[in-house]
């Protein structure tokens, strides 16, 4: 529950700054209470841990999206990178522990590579981020289709399955531990390092950032590379989670990773917000999905509800800003 305490602390801070990030935690609490009412026993430790483990995938996948959105950009290639990493990871591992290091390195290289291509298009070719990443996403889709021939092979190494299982550290999944560590690192970087400050600066006003001696290109490159890497990590972990790879692994995350960021109160125009909110956003998306499953709503219905919730929350943030 260290994560909870962390959140409380951040929430206090965020409250002082004001803005949507504080609200999102109130929203999260409300949703959890509703969940407990609908399904008594929802807030039991075991179930919470299971939820958080699912949220971890969304959470890790949206680290990069948070960075990209903070600089005023967006990364729509994340879902495709997840699938790509998923397929490549499982193929390279082929169920053997000894292949793990090679698999990790390959997957990270794939993520970084896609991120690099994205950032080159955005910075050098001056293509708007959403369209560049969408285009690169399409290409990545083609590449993994060709690579897998439409039928992905391989499966997880036992060690990775172990880590993604439910009880590596007592009752806590390794994935959750990893998410926690990454969260601490990300929040620290954004809040307490010059690099983090510069990300915000670039997102608020690129021109002023240039006049202030900030290496804008460098920031933008780093952001999309980070985004590629965190998406790739997610895809890789999903091999361990499901045991093998699928052609539509990423599909589910296409909306949720962006939704987690936006619901988490990071302004889509850039420069405001942070990963603290995204964490709550990821949990909210997961809990809602889970709740809808409990009350027997189909995948399609859940999708509809998701869309509506995104719109409502984003709208309520924009109203708040006006007041």
């Amino acid at each position, binding site marked *: 529950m260290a994560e909870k305490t962390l959140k409380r602390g951040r929430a206090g801070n965020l409250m*002082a*700054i004001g803005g949507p990030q504080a609200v999102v935690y109130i929203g999260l609490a409300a949703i959890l209470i509703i969940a407990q009412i609908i399904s008594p026993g929802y807030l039991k430790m075991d179930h919470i841990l299971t939820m958080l483990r699912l949220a971890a995938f969304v959470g890790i996948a949206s680290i990069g999206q948070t960075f990209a959105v903070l600089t005023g950009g967006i990364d729509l290639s994340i879902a495709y990178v997840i699938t790509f990493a998923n397929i490549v990871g499982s193929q390279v591992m082929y169920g053997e522990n000894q292949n793990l290091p090679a698999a990790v390195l390959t997957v990270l290289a794939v993520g970084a590579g896609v991120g690099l291509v994205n950032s080159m298009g955005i910075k050098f070719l001056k293509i708007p981020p959403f369209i560049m990443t969408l285009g690169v996403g399409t290409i990545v889709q083609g590449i993994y289709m060709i690579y897998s021939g439409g039928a992905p092979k391989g499966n997880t190494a036992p060690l990775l399955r172990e880590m993604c299982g439910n009880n590596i550290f007592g009752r806590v999944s390794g994935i959750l531990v990893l998410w926690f560590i990454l969260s601490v690192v990300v929040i*620290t970087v954004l809040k*307490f*390092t*010059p690099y983090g*400050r*510069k990300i*915000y*600066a670039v997102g*608020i*006003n690129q*021109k*002023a*950032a*240039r*006049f*202030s*001696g*900030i*290496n804008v290109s460098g920031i933008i490159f780093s952001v999309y590379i980070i985004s590629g890497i965190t998406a790739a990590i997610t895809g890789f972990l999903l091999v361990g989670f499901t045991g093998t790879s699928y052609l539509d692994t990423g599909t589910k995350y296409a909306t949720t990773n962006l939704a987690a960021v936006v619901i988490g109160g990071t302004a889509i125009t850039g*420069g*405001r917000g942070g990963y603290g909110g995204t964490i709550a956003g990821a949990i909210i998306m997961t809990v809602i999905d889970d709740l809808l499953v409990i009350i027997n709503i189909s995948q399609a219905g859940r999708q509809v509800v998701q869309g509506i919730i995104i719109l409502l929350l984003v709208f309520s943030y924009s109203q708040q800003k006006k007041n």
Partner: protein
Amino acid sequence: MSEEILRMSHICKSFPGVKALKEVDFSCKKGEVMVLAGENGAGKSTILKILSGLYQADSGEIFFNGKAVKIKNPLEAQKMGIAMVYQELTLVNEMTVAENIYLSIEPTKKFGLVDRKQIESSIQEVMGQYGIELDLQTMVKDLPVAQQQMAEIVKILIRQPELIILDEPTSALARKEVTQLYEIIRSMISMGKTIIFISHRLEEVFEIGDRVTVFKDGSYVDTKKISEITEDDLIRMMVGRSLQNIFPEKTQPEQEIIFQVKNLNVPKHLRDISFSVRRGEILGIAGLQGHGQTELFNAIYGILPRETGEIITAGESLKIGNAKQAIKQGLALVPADRKNEGLFLLRSIRENLAIISLDQRKKLGIFIDGKKEKKFSLDMKEKLAIKLASLRNEVASLSGGNQQKVVLGKELAINPKVVLFNEPTRGIDVEAKREFYNIMHDLARSGVAVIMYSSDLMEVIGMSNRVAVMYEGTISAVLQGEEITEENIMYCAYGASLANKGERTL
């Protein structure tokens, strides 16, 4: 003639952190040219944007032609017969002049198609009436700014409003076009229209106005007949005191040269610029707008790539390829466009102050030292007397003058050897101006090379030990001591050299 067409009373308007208008009254009579005068930030544009429907007043009433009206958007204003030429042009670059002029009021023929022939003939007719020439099929982006301004005016004329608001329409125009604009204004008046004209150029007020209303710091000061006042009266109304005593007394610079620019060339912008600054000296840059002043600063600062040019401080030639290198080597720039180039409006004051000097206050090699940063920003707040509620507030909540101090503060954090001020006092109130002048003066005396460009001539004259006048990307003259007069500067700003001046007047 004396019938009142417009009365605005008790108008209040606030923006985040700023009270732009405080219970302001304003009125004008049918058929007159009412000049609205006042310094930057006095609220002139704000009240007229309320009139044109772009802003909504927080409280107050508007009477137009004797009737109380509510103006919810520009379209309603237009329908009532009120039209405004804004300072920022309202043309769409990617459309032709004709399309822009008739935007939103296009006449149609069958099938609802735009009647281009009628559009062209009626524009030609109006242009003929006022003696304006424009190529209607050119894309607006391909026109020079002065012609864009004319297109904007035709756009207003074609809508046949009763009341026309012109917000500093002459700032982008050369003298010839200004004269033409005056002609247009006179013929509009002769057709029974009423004009509200915003200006802060004295000569303009006296040339074209019938009456003048003065605002100061968001409040109404007075309305006078132009024929009954002198320039001095007007200045006193605008500034609240005479101008002389707001500048600190000039001090004699030393001989030692501390900053030098040699043979600076930027294709299309700057040609063979060389100058130097001595210890204790403030070098003023003057000239008409758009003659390379901003480019000069940006080129020195590494934002604009140079073709050739050496930049020297303390006898050492600097390598500057971008702003980061410039900052590292002790150069600082207060950019002209504070909102777009200087500040991160939606971030906190503290973050803004710290952004350039982040690397100076690290702990453990990678983290920001929060305590040091807090102390630093408090010190800077004290030093520059920034008026603020909390360092954690957004910069956007500050008044113009205090925002500008934050810009300066973030630059001074690196203890610069050279500070380039580009329009340092644009849009800030008199008191803040005075403080700024003192800061600049102190900087110069402490051995920092201070270079300042301002479009406000009085400022350049009041502050500078020497003045370099720019014309078409070159320095056309350097004036010093007694030579620094308004007349001489304007003379050189039009490309003539001072040496010829005597002959010409003779």
